[in-house]
């Protein structure tokens, strides 16, 4: 195998003990630590000092108007973009100093769920699994597992370009979770899904959220309420709110009785836009 170090199997009793200790420790483990991230593109200061700490067991909903810097921030969390300033630690590994170790800790669903259109779903997942260093004998099992979870069994041998938008999105999520990473970063995971599929993906995220640190971006405020333990609102490149969905809703005055989250969202993002003008 050479390149990827492989863990030796532990005796069963010991393995259980280790798993138990890990599960206890993981409850307070800080998995994502982004400090004062800035990003400038030729003349445009897109992200202006985003700081974000995410522990295991947290599902963070990343909210903000289009162009607020959500995707840019997520790209900096995964190392696709290098921040102009600031640093990212993923499960203790510095993305700048030890990118390979840091990139092993997460699964990533980029915006638009890109995948190679000419490949079958099975080949694509196999490619990702191999590239992530999953041992050869475990790959078929892992593919079966994620295909079951994402309801992809029926299309495993179909070419990706022939799939519907919903299936493509699920292939993107399957690709991100195949190695069971402690960190999941997903840019609009439910975009393009029908209400049933949305519900299923939310259930899945909620189930995984108890052990992982998950960051997902969305436009749908109800989604934050449904799956997230924490909401982070970003507007014009700055974090303007960081708290639980309940706290977020409570920012609306009592006189607002309907669409309270929408109201708060508009207030927060409108004021931020005015400040920068």
């Amino acid at each position, binding site marked *: *195998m*050479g*390149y990827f170090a492989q863990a030796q199997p532990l005796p069963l009793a010991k393995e259980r003990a280790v798993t138990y200790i890990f599960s206890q420790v993981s409850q307070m483990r800080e998995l994502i630590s982004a400090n004062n991230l800035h990003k400038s593109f030729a003349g445009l200061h897109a992200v202006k000092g985003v700081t974000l700490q995410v522990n295991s067991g947290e599902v963070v909903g990343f909210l903000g108007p289009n162009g607020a810097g959500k995707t840019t921030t997520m*790209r900096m969390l*995964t*190392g*696709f*973009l290098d921040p102009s300033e600031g640093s990212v630690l993923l499960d203790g590994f510095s993305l700048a100093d030890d*990118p*390979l*170790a840091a*990139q*092993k800790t997460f699964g*990533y669903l*980029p*915006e*638009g769920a*890109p*995948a*190679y*259109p*000419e*490949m079958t779903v099975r*080949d694509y997942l196999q*490619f*990702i699994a*191999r*590239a*992530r*260093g999953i041992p*050869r004998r475990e790959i078929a099992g892992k593919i079966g597992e994620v295909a079951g979870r994402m309801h992809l069994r029926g299309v495993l041998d179909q070419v990706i370009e022939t799939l519907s938008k919903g299936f493509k999105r699920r292939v993107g999520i399957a*690709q991100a979770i195949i190695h069971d990473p402690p960190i999941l970063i997903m840019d609009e995971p439910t975009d393009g899904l029908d209400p049933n599929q949305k519900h299923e993906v939310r259930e899945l995220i909620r189930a995984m959220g108890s052990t992982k640190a998950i960051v997902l971006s969305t436009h749908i405020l109800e989604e934050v309420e449904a799956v997230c333990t924490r909401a982070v609102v970003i507007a014009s490149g700055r974090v303007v709110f960081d708290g639980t969905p309940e706290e977020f809703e409570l920012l609306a005055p009592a006189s607002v009785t309907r669409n309270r989250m929408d109201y708060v969202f508009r207030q927060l993002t409108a004021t931020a836009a005015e400040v920068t003008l």
Partner: protein
Amino acid sequence: MSPWQVIFRREFRAYFATPLAAVFLVVFLFMSGVFSFSMGGLFERGQADLRSFFQFVPWLFLFLAPALSMRLWAEERRLGTIEVLTTLPIPLWHAVVGKFLAAWFFSLVALALTAPLWITVSWLGDPDQGVIVAGYIGSAMVAGIFLAIGGFVSALTKNQVIAFVVTIVACFLVLLSGFPLVLNFFRDWMSLGAVEAIASVSVLTHFNSLMRGVVELRDVVYFASGICALMVATTFVVDWRKSA
């Protein structure tokens, strides 16, 4: 499997997932036949060698290698899959080398399919096998340097047509840099040393010495170092422009 092998496998199979592989192989074999027999006069020369085939190989690859290399990075950028690829825990140079080797290996397959020509001349006469082997080595080297140039250009754009055209122009200049056509352009305003340096990177000069059957270290070093330098440059360009 090492990461570069994982990338190599995917890329090599990707050629066969579209009609590109079939079109490439058919065009390559058809054109090499046309050139060797009609223009090169394989039979009329009455010589048992493959000179009439090899002399056209650089010109064939000039147009066909860019067709293989144009998609390497431009397509990743257009599809957005570069975001998946570059956030996988693999060193970027593994991806660059894996992609290049996939394209190169494909061109070696195309060259191997010209073996019937070799078998024919061996059957009809008694060719100098060493010269033919050297000619194949030279052909593989030319394909390698063109594909390395193509991969580099492909990393600069997300438009495959631009990658194709720019690669042809770049390969043409490198191919002929030892010839008056290119050198006269530089001669007026560059020092003699600089002009000689440009002349020494001519692919055709090095290919011709290989085609004569002389495998010189100088020529092999030339091709190998050129390919390596382009791999390094491509790695930097991909990293620099991956999100652009």
